[in-house]
């Protein structure tokens, strides 16, 4: 059974995979997979070189200097915690206030000059009258005076 290229490439890059004769055979036949294996080998060598590069050493007295910084860092962290707690508390209070206002708004009865049904009717008729003044085309008078309408359903 012949191996597929995707499987070969997966095996080439997977760690510790011993190259089977079948894999070697495929690499011998398939130029693209052979190039893939070569590139991976080059990359792996480069990783090994990077791993061999020495890391910088801690400078003299690193631990002692660090320990001197700890009280300040702890105080700073505590202050940050307090500030976050305060901000959080403010958000909670603001949310509660908004919720109370919303509930109050919903519970207040629909009364008063603007909210009653009569007042609403008066308001509507006022608006219509103003609209008719400003736009005579839409008033009944203008329509009756300027246009002649053909009788419904009848011809001449």
């Amino acid at each position, binding site marked *: 059974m012949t191996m597929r290229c995707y499987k070969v490439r997966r095996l080439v890059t997977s*760690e510790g995979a011993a190259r089977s004769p079948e894999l070697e055979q495929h690499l011998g036949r398939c130029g693209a997979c052979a190039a893939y294996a070569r590139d991976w080998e080059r990359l792996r060598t480069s990783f090994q070189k990077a791993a061999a590069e020495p890391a910088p050493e*801690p400078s003299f007295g690193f631990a002692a200097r660090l320990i001197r910084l700890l009280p300040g860092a702890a105080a700073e962290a505590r202050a940050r915690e307090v500030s976050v707690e305060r901000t959080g508390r403010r958000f909670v209070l603001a949310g509660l206030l908004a919720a109370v206002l919303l509930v109050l708004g919903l519970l207040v009865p629909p009364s008063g000059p603007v909210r009653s049904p009569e007042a609403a009717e008066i308001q509507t008729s006022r608006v219509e009258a103003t609209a008719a003044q400003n736009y005579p085309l839409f008033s009944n008078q203008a329509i009756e005076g300027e246009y002649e309408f053909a009788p419904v359903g009848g011809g001449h």
Partner: protein
Amino acid sequence: MATLEKDDPEVEWIRRTQQGDGDAYALLVSRYERRVFSLVYRIMRRHEEVEEIAQEIFIKAFLAVGNYHFEAAFGTWLMRIAINHCYDQLRRRRSSRVTYFSEMSADGEQAVVLSAESREGGRIQVELEGRDLAGKLLERASPEDRMILTLKEIEDLSVDEISRLLKLKASTVKVRLHRARKRMLADFRRWQEGK
């Protein structure tokens, strides 16, 4: 406390550190400083940043040591903090991506200076590319790929060790590793074609 020996003084140092004893923490720092420096350098690849980042990691660990419950080895717990901190730094760095002269190794700087002065600059550049190839490709990779490839290919950790450090299943680590390698290889081939 499966991972720590009962007679290991480290247990005592950790307990004292949890009570705020700085001197005990100094002993822990001395034990792990080289390991943290090495990990930070391998991931960040900038000499001048290593000490500062290592310092931030040890401070973070000190502030969080109350949450250490001896479930994993202290070293693993500390390395997890280091990895997370480096990951945050990488993401921050990626958002302001510039190649600095100072990012190069001493050899790199010297080669650039020489290439400007010498007619053989091209040859030196090729040598530099060979040496810094992994570094360059890692610099271009996403923080996720960079992290997992560094742990596997440069730190030479096993899949199980990586899964413990990143708190991932071993199968997830394998899949991510395979995808990261594939992407890096594709990037390497694009880079070669563009040369």
